[in-house]
């Protein structure tokens, strides 16, 4: 079975309160030098059958209509190697 990963991140212009909270905490924990943090979602899909172009197209559609909310999020689809 092959694994396909869909990463979903808030669009860059959209406020990311979670990422901000993490970033602001870092210096207090002694971690300097991180200019920005964005937090998103990672989906690992176990795909039955071959991950051919058709399958990827379907997953792309799934990401677009369901996994991501494209009003505020971008996504990428890739086969895990």
């Amino acid at each position, binding site marked *: 079975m092959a694994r396909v990963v869909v990463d979903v991140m808030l*669009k860059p212009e*959209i*406020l990311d309160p979670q990422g*901000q909270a993490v970033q602001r905490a870092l210096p207090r924990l002694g971690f300097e030098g991180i200019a920005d943090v964005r937090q998103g979602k990672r989906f690992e899909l176990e795909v039955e059958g071959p991950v051919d172009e058709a399958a990827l197209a379907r997953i792309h559609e799934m990401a677009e209509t369901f996994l991501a909310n494209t*009003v505020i999020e971008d996504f990428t689809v890739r086969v895990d190697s």
Partner: protein
Amino acid sequence: MSLDTVKHADETPDVEQPWAELGLKQDEYERIRTILGRRPTGAELAMYSVMWSEHCSYKSSKVHLRQFGEKAPENDALLVGIGENAGVVDVGQGYAVTFKVESHNHPSYIEPYQGAATGVGGIVRDILAMGARPVAVMDPLRFGAADHPDTKRVLPGVVAGIGGYGNCLGLPNIGGEVVFDSCYQGNPLVNALCVGVMKHEDIHLAKASGAGNKVILYGARTGGDGIGGVSVLASETFDAAGDSASGTGKPTKRPAVQVGDPFQEKLLIECTLEIFREDLVDGIQDLGGAGLSCATSELASAGSGGMRVELDRVPLRDATLSPEEILMSESQERMCAIVEPGKVDRFLEICEKWDVIATVIGEVTDGERLEIFWHGEQIVDVPPRTVAHEGPVYERPYARPEWQDALQADDANKLARPGTAEELRAQVLKVISSPNQASKSWITDQYDRFVQGNTVLSQPEDSGMVRIDEDTNLGVAVATDGNGRYAKLDPYTGAQLALAESYRNVAATGARPLAISNCLNFGSPEDPAVMWQFAEATRGLADGCLALGTPVTGGNVSLYNQTGETAIHPTPVVAVLGVIDDVDRRTPMAFADEGHLLYLLGDTKEELGGSAWSQVIHDHLGGLPPAVDLDREKLLAEILIAASRDGMIDAAHDLSDGGLIQALVESCLRGGKGARIVVPDALDPFVLLFSESAGRAVVAVPRSEELRFTDMCGARGLPATRIGVVDGEELDIQGEFTIPLTELRAAHEATIPSLLV
């Protein structure tokens, strides 16, 4: 594009400007040119366009809303009336309460979670800006058909957004409404209400006075979100959502959706309350629709003198934002305060304590202009009143629609009724399990109703109630109601029915109704039929408030709730605030004690127009809504309040949609006790159970109090009919049918979860 300064605008009168894309009409644009004596700069155009949008200027509704002031009843309790962020009511013992209901309809359709979440955030900041600690929220909601696939997208998102934001802020959600109707399919209504409490001396107003006082922007950084949100999302149809014009005509695509950060808002609340405690602000305004454009122009307009703002000092999340975009951004969780110079250091210290970013962005001047600079160059020079308070006002044409007569002639009282007891029983089960009448606990269990430790009553009780003083037990109660079906049949009566129901709900819990807020959700004001509905509803509401002696303290108008030519049902939502001297005296709705006698208060007539029964059994909407008798409502309320104060009743439940049967089912299930009902001779069982006559309530009276209670009703002239007793494990309508509580509960509680999984 180079910076469009005032000087540049002066020199280049003929530059083409994107006023139409920004939603301005030709004559409005001309008016701006006349006011300024030149063409506006890009920044000025941005400000005027958002502030003159329907959402901010109330240009279509203003002429009708005036009645709320003109017909306002004499009422000593009103401390701050319409025109501020929210009205303020005296509730005694030195306390003042502020409350307001507002809409976030269109954004919640596009992005249900964030739309609803930021709706809560916005109304909470309005309450905070008055100087009050927010103490509770409520959420009147309306969705499309329960079984429509899009409802499965919208409803869970809206509910999660309201819960996600409100729960994280620590505000108990004490009530609201959930209504399904296909008329809301593309236009769900997400209204949010917040209540806040303060001492009289803590009331704050949104005005900038005192030359030399500093203008401080504090809270979240400003980003590119929600730009054009006001004009595009809230005022016009929103086919183009997501790529609204950005003020400069630049091709950038800024998202019109705003993302909320409830954690930031919680810090903003605590920080602001600490600032109030130390008396550090002169004037304060939240940033909501139209962002800084609104806050600066409203503060300057309401105060004395002018204001000078260095816009480049605004802390940004995105360094590429243009000044126009900064002025229009609707980034959430921001406030703007006017602070005397000597208090600025302490103000900033408190902000630092709460990790809240605060920046002095300008000062109050002794001039008369609002002047905004960008790196030293002037980009705005306007009389603030012309932006904030003297926008266009329209007398839109209105006309009673042609179909209204036919609709009213289609009498619901003539619909086929159940022929047998068996059929009546089946219809009862069908109605109480229909989406509108079913238990909403799947939704309300996602809201924290206990936080703050002051919740006395919360959903599904008739009104939410919170204690506001631990030592004296003083409390306030709030209910919200609206019935678009009634209002469609007759908008004048429909608005009064919403008021009457909300008023009755507050009284049913033992609180004395004091004041109202409202959210008027309608279709396009450019349609004369919609405008007629609006005119009728506001007239009905204003007349009703005068009759009941409860002034309108504020509210909100949401127009353009329509898909193509089809508008939603006119949906005025009315919130009533009441006060109770001792919350221990509250009356709950649960039938909890066997043997208590059930009395039906008020008159039951054959009134089925717009009823739940006509909708569920016949999918019918026609005829006239129930008649309103506001004197009767007042009397009923007085009886309910007196009975609560003097301990004569143990439970009360108001009768509204679904009629008596709905009230009985809810009160039985809430208390886990059954009831035996004897149909009075004068009444047909079907009419008794399903009629929606207004001005009624059912109460449970301990036997020891029966005489005292009936004497009181008799003396005051309120019909009180003994209809049965709390008893057993089933609802027994004698001579008709019985339904075990377990069966009732299953029917009532299974519907909503099954629709949404």
